[in-house]
């Protein structure tokens, strides 16, 4: 979502009026804006300000006041071993989920673009998983990795791997990544496929004449044309891995995060709602906000310029 907006903003379409003709009216535009503004102010700005504010306080869990502690919540978060462990898992998790779902989504899109017969059926089948909610994906994944009934566990056992999802750190992480990638492939597939189908026939034909090797042709002609789509999806997938996988993780750790891997968002939730550490949880929220913010700015400013928009 953000990247698409980024692409729009960059084209400079934000500041100047879009229309040559517009209505001049003092109150009417505000009446049209009012409902949206009300919701945004109450449920976006107010809570965001409160998050920043409470990150500087230590609040009594029983509600008997709070004390200003400056940056100590941030220092506590960033220096704790637990936080670093979760942060490094989040990094590994995000890289793997993003990379795998991009590559597999692209692979399937290229193949679906190549076949003409049965294309509609493949498309429908591949897209359908998109609509499945992350917690449901988590539940279905749980069944496949269930110690008693899961076929994956049996398969793993055949290779001598004693898989214990929900108990063993590595095994749980493996299952979480598999399920999260599974859930995200259709999204990447849709965008890559529509990107591929937008490549003009003339370019394809010229490329086919110039270069007989399919892989080289793909790498030198198609891939650069797909770069904007890929970049957009990269940002989307990172955001997905950071935030939307919450439900997958929550279902898979079954409320027992103790010896299971979790991501930073899960820790914010866990510390805030379970641990009643409101200050610490808020500080972590703000750190995440900064991460997302930086991600957006990097996207707007730097990486963008390297990509050629046709």
């Amino acid at each position: 979502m953000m990247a698409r907006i980024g692409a729009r903003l960059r084209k400079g379409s934000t500041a100047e009026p879009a229309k040559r003709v517009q209505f001049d009216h003092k109150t009417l535009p505000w009446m049209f804006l009012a409902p949206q503004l009300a919701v945004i102010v109450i449920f976006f700005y107010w809570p965001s300000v409160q998050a920043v504010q409470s990150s500087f306080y230590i609040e009594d869990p029983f509600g008997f006041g709070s004390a200003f502690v400056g940056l100590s919540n941030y220092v506590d978060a960033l220096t704790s071993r637990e936080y670093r462990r979760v942060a490094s898992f989040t990094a590994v998790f995000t890289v793997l989920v993003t990379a795998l779902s991009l590559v597999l989504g692209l692979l399937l899109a290229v193949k679906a673009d190549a076949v003409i017969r049965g294309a509609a059926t493949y498309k429908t089948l591949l897209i359908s998983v998109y609509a499945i909610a992350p917690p449901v994906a988590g539940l279905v994944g749980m069944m496949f990795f269930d110690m008693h009934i899961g076929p994956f566990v049996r398969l793993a056992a055949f290779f001598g791997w004693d898989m214990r999802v929900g108990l063993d750190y590595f095994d749980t992480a493996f299952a979480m990544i598999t399920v999260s990638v599974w859930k995200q492939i259709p999204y990447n597939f849709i965008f890559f496929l529509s990107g591929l189908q937008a490549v003009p026939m003339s370019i394809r034909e010229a490329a086919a004449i110039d270069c007989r090797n399919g892989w080289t042709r793909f790498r030198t002609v198609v891939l650069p044309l797909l770069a904007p789509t890929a970049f957009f999806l990269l940002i989307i997938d990172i955001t997905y891995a950071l935030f939307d996988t919450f439900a997958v993780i929550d279902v898979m750790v079954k409320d027992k995060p103790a010896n299971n891997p979790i991501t930073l968002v899960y820790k914010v939730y866990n510390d805030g709602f379970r641990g009643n550490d409101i200050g610490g949880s808020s500080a972590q929220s703000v750190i995440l906000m900064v991460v997302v913010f930086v991600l957006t700015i990097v996207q707007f400013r730097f990486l963008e310029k390297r990509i050629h928009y046709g």
Partner: protein
Amino acid sequence: MHRTRPLDHIVLILGALFLVLPVLVAFTTSTHTAADIHIHGLQILPGANFAETYGTVLTQRGGFTGQVTGARMLMNSMILGIGFAVGKIVLSMLAAYALVYFRFRAATFMFWVIFTTLLLPLEVRIMPTYGVMSDLGLLNSYTGLIVPLLASATGTFYFRQFFKSIPDELLEAARIDGAGPIRFFIDVIVPLSRTMIAAIFIIMFVYGWNQYLWPMLMTTDERFFTLMRGIKSILQVWVGSQIPDYNQALALAVLAILPPVAVVVIFQRWFIKGLTESDK
């Protein structure tokens, strides 16, 4: 110009199997008894217990925690999905109309006020949002379930782009005919936006239906549980029992999958249009 090779089909078939098979197996397994599943594992062929399992899940009170039935959760999920989609469309059409069609001084500033919301997902400000909700006394209500999710500008962005692509001549003609801003909105903009509205409705319905974290925090009263929330509670019960109700858990998952997948598959064209069109 591409010559189709068997390898392409093999990759696609494997991909489709990888994506779709788990869902099919979830369904077929849910039609077996819990004991059968416990002994034989997940099932590829359908069993004989379809009516029984789904009947139980849909109607039995206390299947999970005491008060809520699957049918009730299904209804709550519908209310959340439809309410969210409709709310989103109404709010964002109005706001986008103001931003595109009115000349007023604060327009650019308002644009930024609204579009900043795209930068931060609800997940990062979940604690304080919860605080605001409880201050307003909106916990355990449909309003509380739906309205905070509306605090993001995705819909406004889509409609703004779409409105900008509508030719200026239409407005000029309408003004010559003496139409004011409200008339123009109702008689020209809304009818022109029909396909766009449909596309956004589908995306937003799926988004609302699939919400998990927010309903989980918001609803402690079981009468407001959605299917996603139900999945959480079935797992909590599951951990302790002798032979877990695999069949019921999977049946609930299938119920939670069906409506959004049906909507997306049936309205594929619009759905893809909504997702990708505004990217170009």
